[in-house]
């Protein structure tokens, strides 16, 4: 291949103790956003964590822009250019909103603390609140902001719209689309099919630790049987 | 032909702050065995050791190990007072073993319900200080003092011995200050103490190890100038080997005890010489009180063994009999036992002096012969006094 893809995952295996959770996941993505959907407990979070170096993989490799990042410590992976929004928010309970942002923010770069406050005015209103003293949705906004402020080459987002009010979800979708346009890669894990299909055209379905299906947004939205088969959806969405 | 080996178990504190004295105590045991060529009447003498940390539970555990597991025939030890009480009590469970004290100096060990097979050839805490009380009244003319002491049984015994003769000689005690064990900032006690002589003539201090160093230097820091007499532990090796400015405060302090570094006594000098020859750089510059006490007790055991030619039959009947009647010359002079199997021996009144080489040593001012368990009061009168405590004794005013 002429140029290396932004992210390539090749035959990734992950075990928790003796339970085999990822069975050789292979995927590639460039600057166009990619969404991964799938039922609960299929291994989506595990995949994100394995990419970030937060759980050890026992086979396969992960490359970022051609550079091998699997096996590296998480902070090196992050420094290589991945911004991570974890599932469950994981904000620092003893840091205020403002401290969160200043901790990762840099004065130069695409995303600055001021821009974040502009994007999520709610955070500006709560800038002195501690991480534990935020509502669920506010925490989620903070977790997204934290990743954006790293100005990464690739964003890995694990259900970033969980707990967000519908208007904010729309807003986040806007932001993610804009990010996609600006040449930053996006790997989005979503339960909300609407969000997944609005943000990315390419969709993968994960099942039992494997990429079971790769398709495009329109197909998934229109093909009820397909959804039924891979996501267990019976009624129309 | 080769006779059966006789095992001597040495028990001392080899852990914690008292590890150094403990090690020196065991050197005393080793030295005594070596003096007999490691053999008595054809019986090879084997020495085994176990450690305690000053805690009676641990001492007991180690003693059991020496006696029941390793088959020690003769036990020497332990080092500290409350351990000694516990071991003497254990001796009753083990009539087949002969116990000799190591360094411990609690009064109760040989006074309250003493064990038949427990022998103490060293003098105890109250004996050590008894002559000193009389001395400060008669020789120094002090008749009003304050006492500063740590709050537990050994200092009680030391104060008990001291006051027994001090009050008798007409002295009074203005006040006693007991500081809790584990305290190291004495400034608030010092704030209540007189700094210069006047109403009060001197201060009797019973604090051990670093506590003594802390107290003395803090007292000096606050400008205190009262003359000081110390308990035996104020001038022991751990204090005399202190490094740093506190050293300058020590010379001139009076104390009393069973040994004196510079005693003009042949037996002592011989002992020191032997100690230095045998241990060289490994030992202390001069043997400590503990080396001397462990040595004395071990030597008594070996002498008695020699007398009975290693006969340990019938629960050591012969050996114990011989020990009870044994009289010999220890490094500090002649020793003998009373009916409680407690030593009667000489006590020194000492002054701390700086030697030519800069080290500190105890210079004898006086030697008092044959101080017995009853402090010269006779059994009846002594038993009247009861056991020492915070409030016992107090000079009748």
């Amino acid at each position, binding site marked *: 291949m002429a140029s290396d893809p932004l992210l390539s995952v090749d035959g990734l295996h992950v075990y928790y103790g003796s339970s085999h959770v990822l069975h050789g996941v292979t995927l590639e993505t460039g600057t166009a956003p990619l969404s991964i959907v799938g039922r609960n407990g299929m291994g989506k979070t595990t995949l994100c964590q394995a990419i970030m170096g937060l759980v050890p993989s026992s086979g396969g490799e992960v490359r970022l822009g051609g550079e091998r990042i699997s096996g590296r410590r998480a902070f090196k992976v992050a*420094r290589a250019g991945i911004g991570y929004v974890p599932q469950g928010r994981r904000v*620092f309970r003893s840091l205020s909103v403002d401290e969160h942002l200043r901790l990762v923010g840099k004065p130069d770069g695409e995303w600055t603390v001021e821009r974040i406050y502009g994007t999520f005015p709610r955070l500006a209103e709560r800038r002195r609140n501690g991480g534990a003293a935020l509502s669920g949705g506010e925490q989620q906004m903070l977790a997204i902001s934290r990743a954006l402020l790293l100005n990464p080459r690739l964003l890995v987002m694990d259900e970033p719209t969980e707990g967000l009010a519908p208007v904010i979800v729309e807003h986040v979708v806007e932001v993610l689309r804009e990010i996609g346009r600006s040449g930053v890669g996006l790997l989005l894990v979503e339960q909300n099919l609407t969000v997944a299909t609005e943000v990315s055209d390419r969709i993968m379905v994960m099942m039992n630790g494997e990429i079971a299906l790769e398709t495009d947004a329109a197909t998934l939205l229109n093909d009820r049987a397909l959804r039924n088969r891979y996501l267990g959806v019976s009624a129309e969405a | 032909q080769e006779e059966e080996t006789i095992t001597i178990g040495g028990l001392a504190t080899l852990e914690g702050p008292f590890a150094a004295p403990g090690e020196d105590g065991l050197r005393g045991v080793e030295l005594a065995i070596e003096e007999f060529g490691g053999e008595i009447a054809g019986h090879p003498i084997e020495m085994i050791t176990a450690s305690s940390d000053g805690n009676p539970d641990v001492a007991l555990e180690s003693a059991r190990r020496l006696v029941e597991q390793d088959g020690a025939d003769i036990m020497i030890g332990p080092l500290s007072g409350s351990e000694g009480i516990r071991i003497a009590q254990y001796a009753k469970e083990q009539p087949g073993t002969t116990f000799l004290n190591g360094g411990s100096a609690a009064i109760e060990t040989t006074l309250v319900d003493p064990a038949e097979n427990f022998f103490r050839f060293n003098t105890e805490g109250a004996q050590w200080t008894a002559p000193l009380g009389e001395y400060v009244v008669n020789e120094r003319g002090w008749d009003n003092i304050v006492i500063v002491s740590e709050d537990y049984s050994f200092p009680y015994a030391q104060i008990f011995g001291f006051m027994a003769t001090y009050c008798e000689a007409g002295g009074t005690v203005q006040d006693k200050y007991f500081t809790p064990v584990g305290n190291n900032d004495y400034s*608030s006690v010092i704030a209540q103490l007189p700094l210069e002589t006047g109403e009060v003539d001197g201060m009797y201090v019973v604090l051990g*190890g670093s506590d003594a160093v802390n107290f003395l230097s803090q007292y000096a820091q606050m400008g205190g100038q009262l003359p000081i007499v110390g308990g035996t532990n104020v001038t022991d090796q751990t204090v005399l080997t202190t490094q740093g400015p506190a050293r300058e405060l020590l010379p001139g302090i009076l104390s009393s005890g069973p040994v004196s570094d510079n005693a003009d006594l042949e037996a002592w000098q011989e002992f020191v010489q032997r100690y230095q020859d045998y241990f060289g750089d490994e030992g202390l510059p001069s043997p400590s009180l503990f080396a001397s006490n462990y040595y004395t007790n071990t030597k008594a055991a070996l002498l008695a063994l020699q007398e009975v030619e290693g006969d340990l039959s019938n629960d050591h009947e012969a050996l114990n009999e011989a020990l009870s009647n044994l009289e010999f010359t220890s490094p500090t002079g002649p020793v003998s036992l009373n009916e409680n199997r407690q030593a009667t021996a000489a006590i020194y009144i000492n002054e701390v002096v700086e030697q030519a080489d800069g080290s500190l040593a105890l210079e004898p001012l006086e030697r008092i012969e044959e101080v017995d368990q009853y402090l010269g009061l006779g059994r009846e009168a002594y038993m009247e006094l009861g056991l020492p405590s915070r409030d016992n004794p107090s000079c009748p005013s």
Partner: protein
Amino acid sequence: MEALLDINWRLFAIVTLNGLTLASLYFIVASGFSLIFGLMRVVNMAHGSLYLLGAYIGFEVSEATGSWLLGIAAAAVVVGAAGAALQVSILSWMQGQDLRQALATIGVSIVAADLMLAQWGGSAYQITLPGAVSSFVPVPVAGRYAMARLMLIGFALVIGIGLWLMLNRTRVGMLIRAGVDDRRMLEALGVNVPLVFVGVFAIGAGLAGVAGVIGGSVLSVSPGEDARYLLSSLIVVIVGGMGSIPGAAIGALLVAMAETYGLAYTPTYGIVYTFAIMVAVLAVRPQGLLGRAA
């Protein structure tokens, strides 16, 4: 009535000063402990050992060079390095498992105590203070008071303010708090968390070393002091609230005051009062006086 007038004000003033200066010493010792505990949630049971090591190093160096300040510097550096080594070689392997770390440091303290005993024996050491501070200063009511002890207050202030600035005015404080909340997440934001932790541990240990030299000069050092100062640090931090530098100051003050007044006025139970204060504080504020709710 008479008894009231009878109060010995000079004694009271001196005892109060004693309490203040002892509090300063406790604060200096506890500050490093509080730093490590508050920021990294490591209960460093080897803190007392680091204190003792600092005192011995300070003694050796100041004896050899004749300079007390060099002694302090050497203790800070050597003990700081020892702390860093402890973090790298043992504690970093169990980061986040606070219980296991506490246990490991207990192991370290046992070994350290034994090795220091082998090296320096059971004698008491005292570090020579510079001549300038071995004097008296006049103080109202109390009469005069030892300069050496007053100096403690100065040290405590310098250390306290320095730490407070570091924690509240720099990014370091934020980094560390975040690292304690969720270490893995912080790493995923590109922060070399292990390095930060080593740094903090070194500073905390260095403070213990400095405290050792100061304590060894004003009082003295000998085996056994390690447990004593570990315990006082524990109580100071429990009372004051973990990780709070002003809390440690208040904790030190309460504990030292209880101890000195106790010793002066009711010697028998002086030490027990300290614990009574602790229990009383806990009953009202389990996170300590200035601690954040856990």
